[in-house]
């Protein structure tokens, strides 16, 4: 049972490769370890495999035939490929590029969607507590507490994205995976989400894919730089932005390419 030894890291990637077509790797032998209560930014030019790597962590690739993932991903020391994918996805919540609240559900229904989808029945009191706790944690409670029964799609884009974060947090995940969560939002909504990420760090571990280098600099503790599927550099954000070890990272960060 070597896989269950707790190493102090919440997530370990060992030789993780993902290929869409046999022989062509979108993610190529990535090794990394992520400590709890940190924000890790994954950066890199378009098509470098950032989102692919993120989706591998909660096994969303299995939706699409033909994608193969190899290597080991240990979540709290346990190999996720030996776990039930539904459990993996509960432990690693995901926030997508565009806000995608469920259009038929109300605001509170969206927050509770994870419980409904997992057939976990709750009484009215529990529901109320979860909705309030989750919406408070994304600073949305005061804005929506009087319209909890309205459809989630009536909210503004930024509010919808916070609702989607609340929906992921409602299940109390260990890890929050964010795939360019602010790329479809205006600057004000973006800064609110960034502030939120810094607050959420106290309770959760966050991995965020971002195109926006200044965003990575503002919110992340550690940063990964990926290029052509390979993890070129991984270290603290401060070091990467001040003294990058790799020439490619430096070129990307200074805008020479990408």
């Amino acid at each position, binding site marked *: 049972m070597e896989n269950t030894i707790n190493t102090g890291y919440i997530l370990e990637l060992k030789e993780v490769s993902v290929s869409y077509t046999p022989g062509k790797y979108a993610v190529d032998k990535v090794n990394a370890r992520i400590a709890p209560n940190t924000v890790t930014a994954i950066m890199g030019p378009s098509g470098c495999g950032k989102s692919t790597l993120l989706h591998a962590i909660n096994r969303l690739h299995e*939706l699409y035939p033909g994608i193969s993932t190899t290597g080991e991903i240990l979540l709290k020391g346990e190999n996720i490929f030996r776990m039930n994918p539904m459990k993996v*996805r509960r432990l690693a919540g995901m926030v997508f590029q*565009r806000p995608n609240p469920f*259009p*038929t559900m109300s605001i509170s229904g969206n927050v509770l969607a*994870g419980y409904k*989808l997992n057939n976990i029945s709750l009484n009215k009191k529990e529901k109320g507590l979860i909705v309030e706790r989750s919406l408070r944690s994304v600073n949305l409670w005061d804005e929506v507490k009087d319209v909890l029964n309205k459809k989630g799609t009536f909210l503004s884009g930024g509010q919808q994205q916070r609702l*989607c974060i609340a*929906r992921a947090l409602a299940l109390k995940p260990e890890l929050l995976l964010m795939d360019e969560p602010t790329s479809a939002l205006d600057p004000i909504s973006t800064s609110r989400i960034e502030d939120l990420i810094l607050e959420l760090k106290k309770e959760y571990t966050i991995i965020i894919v971002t195109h926006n280098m200044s965003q990575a600099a503002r919110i992340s503790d550690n940063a990964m730089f990926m290029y052509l599927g390979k993890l070129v550099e991984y270290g603290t954000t401060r070091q990467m932005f001040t003294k990058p070890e790799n020439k490619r990272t430096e070129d990307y960060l200074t805008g020479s390419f990408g």
Partner: protein
Amino acid sequence: MKKTKLSAPRYRLMKSRIFFYLVCTFSLLTMIPLFLIIGELIRKGYKQFNFDLFTKVAPTSMEAMLARISGDAIPGGILNGLAGTLLILAVAIVLAIPLGIATGVYLAEKKEKPLARLVRNLSDLLQGIPSIVIGVIVYIWVVKPMAGYSALAGSTALAIMMLPMVIRSTEESLKMLPDSLKEAGLALGGSYSAVVLRILLPSSFSGLFTGALLAISRVMGETAPLLVTVLGAATVNWDITQPTTAVSLLIWEFYNDPNLASLIWSSSLLLLLIVLCINLLAKSIAKKWKIQ
């Protein structure tokens, strides 16, 4: 040189205007048959379009003849037909809609699988099969083994006719949903069935409902397949194993009996009104419940 430059735009404007009026005229022309039909039905049917139409069963030839001789309106209505249509359609809905939706989900989810392609093509073919052929086949499948005509046989025939429409509308409305909805559901740890049942199908509900309504209105007036499956009945019947009648079948019977001929118009008018109402309802639902 100058002249042509000036006249060219005017000529083009004129051409586009002529084209516009031509298109308008033709589209109005296509409306003419519909209005003529409705007008004719109202003109000939209003006399018999009364309360009795809904509350009394169809008269016998003798009753109608007596009324005709004395110059009265023909007694009776089409209650047995309305009840039969309702019964046959209700059972057809129960048979066709779950099956059609399940198939539609499969086609939308496994778009490119060979089996999905086969099913899609076969379902298109099914739509092209003449209704009388479906009726005769159901006669062999259901009427013969059950040793008798029945509402169930009629429902089976209509259900087969509804299937392709339900399948297609389910598939199309599910395909319109963004992939991100499914991903979001699965990312919350939902099982595949929970995501389909609790997120995807409810999100495309207006499309499914509209498709089902249109399929119903499409088969509502079917006569040929019912002729060989439900036979007809002079009284109201609610037993699916017994011969039944339907509004369309009654119209066929009225047509075959000179004494009852004047009932054709009122019952046709009613059938047309019901179908129109279902269509309008389907349209308004599609608009109202549409999810952005």
